[in-house]
């Protein structure tokens, strides 16, 4: 046993002996650089941002007054700003529900029926759109939704102009063309975040034990009953986990409504314009607190529903 210890092992050996004797020291040394990075660069910046939301903007000079005040938060709950918040939260909720509906059959098929190469194909078919360029995907929809674009053409071929015109004529969600309407914004959001919903839903469905379903059938349940009382409740944490992403990402996005949408702002756009052209960093910071608070509440709810076990 002592042979190895007697060999001359030089510096490297001596250092590794120290670490072997004190494993905590090594953990600490490994952890320090990344923790400092995240701690200083990221968390530090977040705190700086939060701090800014308690400052205010002097209306006359346009300069930030570095004194503690809640007046910026008063502004946040002003009529038009509340409108922006309600609009964004509604959009996020609708996008989440629609994603769940479209994602479920894909996840269900992939989890319960796809085997072998089909399984790999399904996995890749979801992973590729998830990771491929965000901006390219948004651009694709700009092409499709344009007035002279693909959808209009198909509507003409199928004699469905009346339907398209009807949708565009609707009061709030319509507009001059799909690429300048809430319908368009909604479609693009659903498209871009859909993979985030499919993957956790599928993961939850994969974990539903096959013998539960057999037991349910043996006990006389119809397939529909089995689905409602066994499969769906067990898949729900996965859907909730997916909804964390679809909801959070929609709340904070400002590129999609800028490219496909009308001139009424969403939270992300408000933050962007406030910090940029308006130079009102305090109000912009206060606006970012909204998604943070909503997400903190959402995550707390999701944790209670067991969504984190699926991630």
């Amino acid at each position, binding site marked *: 046993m002592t042979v190895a210890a007697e060999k001359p092992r030089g510096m490297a050996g001596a250092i590794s002996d120290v670490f072997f004797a004190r494993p905590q020291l090594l953990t600490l040394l490994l952890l320090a650089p990344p923790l400092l990075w995240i701690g200083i660069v990221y968390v530090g*910046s977040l705190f*700086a941002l939060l701090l800014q939301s308690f400052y205010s903007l002097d209306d006359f000079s346009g300069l930030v007054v570095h004194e503690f005040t809640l007046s910026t938060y008063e502004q946040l709950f002003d009529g038009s700003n509340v409108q922006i918040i309600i609009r964004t939260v509604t959009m996020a909720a609708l996008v989440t529900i629609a994603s769940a509906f479209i994602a479920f059959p894909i996840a269900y098929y992939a989890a319960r029926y796809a085997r072998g190469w089909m*399984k790999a194909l399904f996995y*890749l*078919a979801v992973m590729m759109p998830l990771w491929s360029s*965000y901006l390219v995907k*948004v651009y694709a929809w700009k*092409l499709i939704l344009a007035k002279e674009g693909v959808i209009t053409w198909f509507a003409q071929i199928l004699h469905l102009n009346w339907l398209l015109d009807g949708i565009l004529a609707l009061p709030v969600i319509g507009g001059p063309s799909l690429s300048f309407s809430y319908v368009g914004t909604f479609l693009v959001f659903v498209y871009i975040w859909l993979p985030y919903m499919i993957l956790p839903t599928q993961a939850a469905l994969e974990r539903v034990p096959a013998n539960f379903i057999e037991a349910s059938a043996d006990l006389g349940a119809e397939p529909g009953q089995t689905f409602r009382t066994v499969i769906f409740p067990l898949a729900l944490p996965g859907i909730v986990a997916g909804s964390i992403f679809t909801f959070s990402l929609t709340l904070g996005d400002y590129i999609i409504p800028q490219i496909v949408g009308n001139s009424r702002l969403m939270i992300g756009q408000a933050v962007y314009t406030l910090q940029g052209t308006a130079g009102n960093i305090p109000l912009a910071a206060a606006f970012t607190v909204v998604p943070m608070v909503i997400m903190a509440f959402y995550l707390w709810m999701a944790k209670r529903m067991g969504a984190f076990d699926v991630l």
Partner: protein
Amino acid sequence: MSSDGKTKSPVGLRISATAGLLFLHLPLFFIFLYAFTTEEKSFAFPPPGLTTKWFGVAWNSRPDIWPPLYLSLQVAAIATILALIFGTLAAAALSRSKFFGRETISLLFVLPIALPGIITGIALRSAFDIMSIPFSVWTIMLGHATFCIVVVYNNAVARFRRLSGNLVEASMDLGADGFQTFRYVILPQIGTALLAGGMLAFALSFDEVIVTTFTAGQQTTLPIWMLSELIRPRQRPVTNVVAVFVFLVTLLPILAAYYLTREGEHTGGSSK
């Protein structure tokens, strides 16, 4: 009986699953199609004619494309290297021992992708303002590395968990010191996971736009160039040519990463 996977799936399910997948993939086809259209002023469908001239135009007579491309490659390369170092360290530390606050710290490492990108962006922006740091390649890189760490960390931590402690102990018993054990036992085991994480990080950084608009100042990365072309189009098909290029540049690392991590991560159809 439909649970054993041998019986056929219901028709309705097959149709809606197929429709869902088509919805996910069809739109990208139009990016390719419009790179060949002869119409440069609108998105007219069907394209009035097809041509390959835009690839030549993008290559020869649009010098505004190249500096953003170089900047994006530069940023992605630096961010990936930093993310590999920090992400691996974090994964190694958090998977090798249990200690107080471990859960909080692992939550901290995924926070940059759990919170909307705009929050990361404006937080960094205001921090730069407060400390009067001028915008440069390094400010962009700082933001990118922060969320790329998460990607590498996720990949590495999954592999570290599967890494058997017995192998490390055996290596020590046979007289290897810590560094030798790392070099000859641990590194070969986690190598592919790191490579995969690095590629995903590169792809993520290469087309990131939300955080970048806040940390770039006047600099233009390729996604920012694309964004400005989307808002104020010049030759639309040229934007498509670049989009096709960006799509391929991000697609290849993703496929490679999938290939490198496919075994083990993905045990098909297991029901415990």
